[in-house]
């Protein structure tokens, strides 16, 4: 006679296996979120203190508290320290987090909708679509919506590019790797040509702005930009999180997802709009920063599996960490130089993409 009585529910299912089901969420998930949050906060303090004017971590926190109206911690000792933190560093750190979170979440979302781990806003041309529309407003001098003009144009450009890729690369509910990548090549080529045309048409200052777009940089981030980007990113992330469960079902294929009650057509359209929104928010002021949406969700999937309820928020968090770190390197690696961050992410992301393509190819047994 054992001490534990059998559960009543088991008695109703005599054939049921007595061994418990594997847990829904692996224990590693808590560690991942904890680790990423700690890394994000630590990195933010270090990043805010690093640069031309060094501010020690304790003074960064003190400066932050004072700005929020709290008399805590040591004041920044340098006479310009407080001003540097609040006018330059903090908006830039915040922007890096927002852009990283937006790009990584957009990547996770896009991969879910396309059912393909290689879908990424930069690779398939959504970022360059957004960049074309944004540079059009620069060169053509359009400013119908004031400071929102560039961001709005980026959103529209991204939306058009996403729908174009979607319509061109999909058949039978799935997107094959080769079709997706080739569609991305075509879209990027067209967008590159239009960007070249605008570069040709623009005057010196406009050219500079367009070049900045293509390289990607967080240099010159101001609070006004953060105030535009933040609400877009928050809305996009909330919408992405709300779609997570249905994205899981979409992995079964469109027909099976429909059999489980998912309104697939609506989900697709909403997801594409959210991808465009997040991508536009990211590129609106910072230009094209590629591969974040590819690398981060993939690493998260390797760590804790593909379930979107974990993948989407963890990717957002991981993207924020990655871009904050990348931006720190971009502005401190070479003294007195602010390297373009898009160049850095592509430098790391390009080889990663190659590795991923090879791996996917091996698993699929060919270019499937």
């Amino acid at each position, binding site marked *: 006679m054992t001490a534990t009585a059998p559960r009543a*529910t*088991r008695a*109703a*299912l005599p*054939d*049921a*296996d007595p*061994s418990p*089901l*594997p847990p*829904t969420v692996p224990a590693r998930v808590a560690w991942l979120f904890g680790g990423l949050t700690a890394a994000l906060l630590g990195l933010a303090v270090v990043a805010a203190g690093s640069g031309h004017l060094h501010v020690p971590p304790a003074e960064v926190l003190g400066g932050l508290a004072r700005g929020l109206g709290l008399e805590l911690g040591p004041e920044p000792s340098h006479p310009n320290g407080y001003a540097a933190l609040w006018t330059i560093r903090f908006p830039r750190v915040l922007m890096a987090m927002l852009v990283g979170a937006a790009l990584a979440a957009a990547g996770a979302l896009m991969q879910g909708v396309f*059912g*393909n*781990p290689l879908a990424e806003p930069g690779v398939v041309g959504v970022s360059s679509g957004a960049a074309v529309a944004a540079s059009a407003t620069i060169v053509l001098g359009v400013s119908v919506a004031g400071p929102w003009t560039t961001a709005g144009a980026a959103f529209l450009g991204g939306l058009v590019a996403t729908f174009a890729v979607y319509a061109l690369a999909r058949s039978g509910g*799935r997107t094959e790797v080769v079709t997706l990548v080739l569609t991305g090549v075509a879209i990027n080529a067209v967008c590159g040509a239009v960007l070249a045309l605008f570069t040709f048409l623009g005057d010196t200052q406009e050219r500079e702005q367009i070049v900045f777009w293509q390289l990607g940089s967080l240099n010159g981030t101001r609070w006004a930009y953060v105030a535009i980007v933040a609400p877009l990113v928050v809305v996009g992330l909330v919408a992405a999180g709300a779609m997570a*469960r249905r994205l*899981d*079902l*979409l*992995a*079964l*294929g469109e*027909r*099976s997802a*429909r*059999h*489980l*009650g*998912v*309104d697939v057509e609506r989900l697709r359209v909403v997801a594409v709009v959210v991808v465009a929104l997040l991508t536009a928010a990211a590129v609106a002021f910072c230009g094209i920063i590629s591969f974040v949406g590819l690398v981060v969700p993939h690493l998260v*999937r390797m760590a804790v*599996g*593909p*379930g979107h309820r974990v993948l989407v928020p963890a990717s957002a968090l991981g993207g924020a960490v990655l871009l904050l770190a990348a931006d720190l390197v971009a502005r401190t690696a070479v003294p007195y130089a602010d390297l373009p961050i898009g160049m850095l992410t592509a430098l790391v992301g390009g080889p990663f993409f190659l590795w991923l393509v090879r791996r996917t190819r091996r*698993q699929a047994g060919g270019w499937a």
Partner: protein
Amino acid sequence: MSGLLQVRGATVRVDATMLLDAVDVDVHLGEVLVVVGPNGAGKSTLLSVLAGDTRPDEGSVTLDGAPVEAVRPAELARHRGVLLQENQVSFPFRVVDVVRMGRAPWRGTDAEDRDDDVVAGALDDADVTHLAARRYPTLSGGEKSRASYARVLAQEPRLLLLDEPTAALDVRHQERVLARARAHARAGGAVVVVLHDLALAAAWADRVLVLAGGRVAAHGAPADVLTGALLTDVYDHPVDVLPHPVTGALLVLPRHGAAPDVVPEPDHDPTLQPLAEDLA
């Protein structure tokens, strides 16, 4: 026995090709309906019409008397589950995660409380409990098929629509899958199974629907429908139907080696005549 799903005069056309031509079917609670027929007979199209995926160009499909296209996807998912022939999963979900996805239609209802028991039961019914922690893409074809079957069982629909659930399975699992389907019908559910294996159809069907060229060629009890003459005609290949010497069950045996020569002789094949004339 009561009608759950009614199909009347369903016609599906793709361009000039008739996939289904004025098909009438009733799906009753409490019985297993097996659909058989040669390749391209319209079996999968019929299943897709029954599932509400394909809207027939003419005719109607009603579930409990209501037009199936008027039922919202989420509501429909609580009434019918569908196992397709191809079951790919895009990302490396674990088998248990895939089976849990079957519970999605019940989210937010009282039935959600039973999720764990239902999932455990479904894993066991499809004999994939030992694979629960494995990544779905690493499974073999038969294991994938069983894991997907477990997902459909976890959905707990009244109507099970199964498209060749046994195609990739060994004998033991073929029996297990169809026995579970029959148990579902005996418990008051309804089952529609598309099968290629006529012996399995004869063994497990309460009613058989024979499709040929998009039309209903025969419809009724297995003993009435599965006759040598009809099957020989429909499949254009000699088929014998005999009683089992021990059990008396129907045995459906295609005559092996009875196909016309695979390589036709030139002077008997009219399509090769012009070539022969050219050469002359």
